[in-house]
């Protein structure tokens, strides 16, 4: 949570205003309130609405979701620790992986 707050503070006021304007409808996306669901929401939604995950549901194998989480951390600089990455990857596989 500390990282999340720090991140929000670093967002400029202008970009926050514009992001909210363009993302108003994302509030309509229902999301799981379990502890891991909340973790996924808090980390992933810093940069994108959660429909980015929903849109890719149903076909990725475990290595596919792992690669996505790695890409978000390494290429896009998502503030996700190693432990959180494992938890988030397992959750994405369980909820949105191939066959689910």
């Amino acid at each position, binding site marked *: 949570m500390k990282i999340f707050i720090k*991140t929000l503070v*670093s*967002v*400029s006021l*202008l*970009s*926050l205003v*514009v*992001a909210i*304007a*363009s*993302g*108003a*409808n*994302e509030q*309509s*996306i*229902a*999301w*799981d309130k379990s502890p891991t669901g909340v973790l996924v929401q808090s980390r992933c939604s*810093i*940069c*994108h*609405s959660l*429909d*980015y995950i*929903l*849109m*890719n*549901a*149903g*076909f*990725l194998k475990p290595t*596919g979701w792992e*690669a*996505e989480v790695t890409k978000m951390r390494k*290429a*896009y*600089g*998502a*503030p996700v620790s190693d432990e959180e990455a494992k938890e988030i990857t397992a959750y994405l596989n*369980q*909820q*949105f992986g*191939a*066959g*689910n």
Partner: protein
Amino acid sequence: MDSNKPHSKRRRQLLSTLALTPVAVATQSALGGAPYLPTGAVASARQAALPGKATLLKRSYRPPNYETPLAALNQELTPNEQLFVRWHMASIPEISPQKFRLTVGADYHAKTLRFSLADLKRQFTAVDVTAVCQCAGFRRGYSDPHVPGVQWGHGAVGNATWTGVRLRDVLRHAGIDAATVEVAFRGEDRASLDSTPRFIKSLPTYKTLDDQTILAYAMNGKPIPHWNGAPLRLVVPGWVATYWMKQITRIDCLKAPLTNFWMNTAYRLPVGKFPGDTRFGTQANDKTVPITEMVVNSLITNMVDGQQVKSNQPLVIEGVAWDGGSGIEQVEVSWDDGLSWSPATLAKALSRYSFQRFSASITPTQVGLTALRVRAVSYSGQTQTEQLIFNNGGYHNNVPHRIEVKVV
């Protein structure tokens, strides 16, 4: 196929609680032939409108990724409010045309110029270019097997007459010289985090000096919509839209190839699978090359999946075809899923980079489920591939567009 497997109970619960009306799209081919969008992409799509834009098909709210309905492509020029919207970054500032400044420089000499929009219009000749703007990920959602990314259907494409100034005029004014191997462009869009690399892309020098490559401030005679890159965006006719940088505020002549995630990792194709491996030599390596020119493609735009059509009566098929700029030589349509083909009539296109409108009258003779198909041939001799040439980015899908209909 994985995407056809049923959801888990948990997943069904998540989906069933989603608000708004889901878009009615078939998730499976009735004939079992064509790959369809991922189940999650179908379930999460919405009819939605961004401020100043028409209702489009929402793929993601933030960053905003919205595609054009197929019916809106049933005309040569795509209306401004209906052009698809695609951004990598969530923060897209409103830039006042009065306050906008473009900085043009070179990393090998000190000369740096700044232009207002009025400066550009006053100092350089205005030109019109009619050109198709097609997302590199166009039709990614139909990749088989599916690949991650924005699950675009058929609507990440549009065509417009763009007005602006020639990039080469601006670069020459700024003193571009033979040391330039690439020219880099920076957009003003930003991610929520400073740790995310800014969206900066480059073009090979020869493409920046092409007289059709322009810095555009108008689309179809009106200002470019905010969501499509106002006040100034790059128009690179024939090349996929990842190079059509939006909200450009900085241009740099480089004496060494640009190295960043967007060039070295994203938007790349395996070597040897598609034409044009040598088009961007400074960014090529042994295994991959940047995606560059669009492949020949076509869409049926006046019919919808599941439509009923009458047997033994002429059926008019309309649509658009385009390629990387050689122009469209021939279009054929089929009413029997590719067994027989009939030539279409081509309208006069506004330019060789424009949508090529076509129409054909065909007469289905057999009742039952079937599929309409379309395929185009370009003047460069390119044809559409019957089988998908799979690649990890889901790029260059030009398998003939197929619409399932019921002949009654």
